[in-house]
């Protein structure tokens, strides 16, 4: 019957297509290495998940693969492989892998904020360190401290530090006729008040008038005095020396302290800087001098640029102006707080072959390889013993730059870190980012006290919600 032949044809087609697909991609056999436990004596695979931070650029991939080859040639029973995931998709892929039961053996390099988002996921490395008597004294203090959770769990071994300092545009200072900022970390006259003064003198409008002059035209600014636009709210607030340093809550995480007096002072300083003194760019101006690279300094739009070591890259050597780095200023209390980050590699608790992962991790951050890792990721090595060697590398890469600033700044990294975990950290950080965004885009000067009171209430609501169910 006609329907029968129809049946036949349809099922034949279905079967044919299934056969076709099964035969099709012969070049890609399913890889089951991660789900099956290898028989004893065979190679154990350590997959290193790269993408939570930097490390996914093609040049970095080549360098990482070379590092893996080096490891594999000296280790018979462990095979190291880098798994590269572009940053924008890294979080969902990581979470998918974890829920599928195939967590990677190592994840990194991760900043404090990222490792904090998955805080409960990481294996506590304290027991491993004790078991092997692993010597952590060679690591800088902040590098270890920043990667301990509130209950003392050590979630990873540090790779590098990213201290912050200022980059300054020498041409802009020449054009204003002012002396360059000091390079002396002990010069106590270099305060935030002095920064404001200097920044105003260096801010230049289209007619060559600086921000201190009476004919200054704020609608036509060509060079801004100061900028910290790669920093978020907590970056901006941490340097003002509040008791909780970079954390917007009390130590028990129950009360929000966004409107701490030091933070109010600080936010008011920034708001005045943008809307009254005009030496910092507002949101619109920022998107004008920052044409989708997100880089106001390299195009010459900013005279003093606060950033971290990750800003330094190969292409900085050919900028159309001369530049150098210098210490960031003392704050209004006479303290030096230079917000910094520390990157770690961590081991997910649900991963298989954690011992092999631990071996691989130790190898990656040993004295020889930590230098290579930091070259790839643009950080300052977390080991004190290799500082000399790294300094040589830096001076080769950036001739004429005062690289000692990088090392000195590492001493002042904020330990109650500006990226540290708080309950529902993603939501809280988003609320703070929104507050900063209001500051920068609403077209007029703000009363920092009322803005922060409002923000504080929002954060407190989140904290209350969290503690209601925990």
């Amino acid at each position, binding site marked *: 019957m006609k329907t029968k032949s129809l049946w036949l044809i349809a099922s034949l087609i279905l079967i044919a297509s299934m056969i076709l697909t099964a035969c099709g991609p012969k070049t890609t056999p399913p890889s089951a290495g991660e789900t099956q436990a290898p028989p004893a004596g065979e190679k154990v695979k350590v997959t290193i998940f790269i993408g939570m931070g930097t490390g996914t650029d093609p040049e970095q991939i080549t360098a990482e693969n070379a590092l893996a080859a080096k490891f594999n040639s000296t280790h018979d029973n462990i095979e190291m492989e880098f798994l590269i995931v572009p940053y924008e998709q890294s979080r969902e892929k990581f979470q998918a892998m*974890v829920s599928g039961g195939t967590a990677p053996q190592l994840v990194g390099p991760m900043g404090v904020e990222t490792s904090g988002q998955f805080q409960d996921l990481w294996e506590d490395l304290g027991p491993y360190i004790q078991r092997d008597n692993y010597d952590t004294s060679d690591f800088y203090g902040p590098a270890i401290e920043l990667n301990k959770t509130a209950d003392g769990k050590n979630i990873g071994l540090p790779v590098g530090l990213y201290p912050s300092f200022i980059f300054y545009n020498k041409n802009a200072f020449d054009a204003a006729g002012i002396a360059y900022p000091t390079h002396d970390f002990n010069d106590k006259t270099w305060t935030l008040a002095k920064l404001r003064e200097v920044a105003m003198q260096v801010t230049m409008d289209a007619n060559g008038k600086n921000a201190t002059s009476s004919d200054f035209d704020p609608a036509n600014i060509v060079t801004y005095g100061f900028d910290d636009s790669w920093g978020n709210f907590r970056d901006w607030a941490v340097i003002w020396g509040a008791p909780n340093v970079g954390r917007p809550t009390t130590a028990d995480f129950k009360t929000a302290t966004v409107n701490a007096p030091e933070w109010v002072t600080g936010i008011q300083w920034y708001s005045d800087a943008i809307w009254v003194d005009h030496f910092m760019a507002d949101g619109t101006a920022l998107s004008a001098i920052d044409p989708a690279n997100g880089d106001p300094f390299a195009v010459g739009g900013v005279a003093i640029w606060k950033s971290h070591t990750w800003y330094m890259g190969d292409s900085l050597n050919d900028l159309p102006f001369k530049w150098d780095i210098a210490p960031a200023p003392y704050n209004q209390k006479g303290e030096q707080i230079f917000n910094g980050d520390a990157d770690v590699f961590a081991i997910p608790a649900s991963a298989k072959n954690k011992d092999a992962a631990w071996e691989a991790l130790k190898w990656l951050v040993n004295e020889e390889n930590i230098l290579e890792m930091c070259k790839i990721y643009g950080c300052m090595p977390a080991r004190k013993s290799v500082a000399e060697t790294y300094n040589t590398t830096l001076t080769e890469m950036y001739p004429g730059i005062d690289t000692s600033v990088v090392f000195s700044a590492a001493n002042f990294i904020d330990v109650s870190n500006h990226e540290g975990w708080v309950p529902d950290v993603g939501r809280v950080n988003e609320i703070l980012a929104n507050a900063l965004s209001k500051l920068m885009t609403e077209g007029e000067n703000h009363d920092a006290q009322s803005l922060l009171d409002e923000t504080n209430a929002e954060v407190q609501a989140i904290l209350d919600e969290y503690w209601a169910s925990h």
Partner: protein
Amino acid sequence: MKNPRLRLSLRQKEALSGYLFISPWIVGFLIFTIGPMIASLYYSFTDYDIISPPRWNNFANYKKIFSGILPAILNQDSSRLGDPIFWQSLKVTLTYAVMALPLGLIFGFFLAVLLNQKVPGVNIWRTIYFLPSVIAGVAVALLWGRIFNPRVGILNPIIEAIFHVKGPGWLGDPHWAVPALVLMGLWGVGGGMIIYLAGLQGVPTDLYDAAKVDGANMFQRFWHVTLPMMTPVIFYNLVLGMIGTFQYFTEVYVLTSGGSGGLGGPVRSTLFYNLYLYENAFRYNQMGYAATMAWILFVIVLVLTLLVFRSSEYWVFYEGQLKGKD
């Protein structure tokens, strides 16, 4: 011996054939689609941070979203809203949809009509207009970031030259960020033009000839022949365009990934619904809440689609439409 065979009526045979033909989709649906959909519906009733198993929380997620609506509508009092950010994201998405959908439909259609004429070099014109929709998303985002630059981008100097008005801050300005995205989307309108072209090509020329013989001029031919014959295609673009604009995500994610204000743009002015959903799912460890948002959007879009389908009886003309259901 007579084999007792199942005697199917003609109608039943037709139905069986119909089901047979759509069986590939049904099989695929059962294997790949229905499981994840039901799983996500389940998630919407849980707290789920992906790391640990989902924890049933009744309707807590739904309550959070819908609480405080009445005071907000009746007394303009938005302080009692359970999640004001949710409503902001819905507002942003609706604003975008209301702008992008009609503009996209109209521009796409008229572009196709223009490109359907036998002007010299029409193949080259079509290729040029098609070009933007082929370029990879990440390159498009980087390009348009520069074009929208308020001071030295390409757009504002042109605006100043022609209209003598200072151009807006585009992506950096909360009021102009969404229009900027609409503009960026219109650049790629040539992609959908193909469908219109295919539709226009399918209008049999003997209809035009008959119309000409009846004395119809260009506009009358357009109105009485082209437009009605194109309604099936317009309907397609309307439905899918609507579904698409409500789920707008990729372009705005790449563009605002690093800007001021974080993922939602300045003062959350480009915090699209799907973007907020994504944040909840993968940044805030709240996949349950994200699933709730997903299903609320599902209901909204489903209702709108049903309305459009209902209305199609009045304005969509199929030459080969089956009358009667079963």
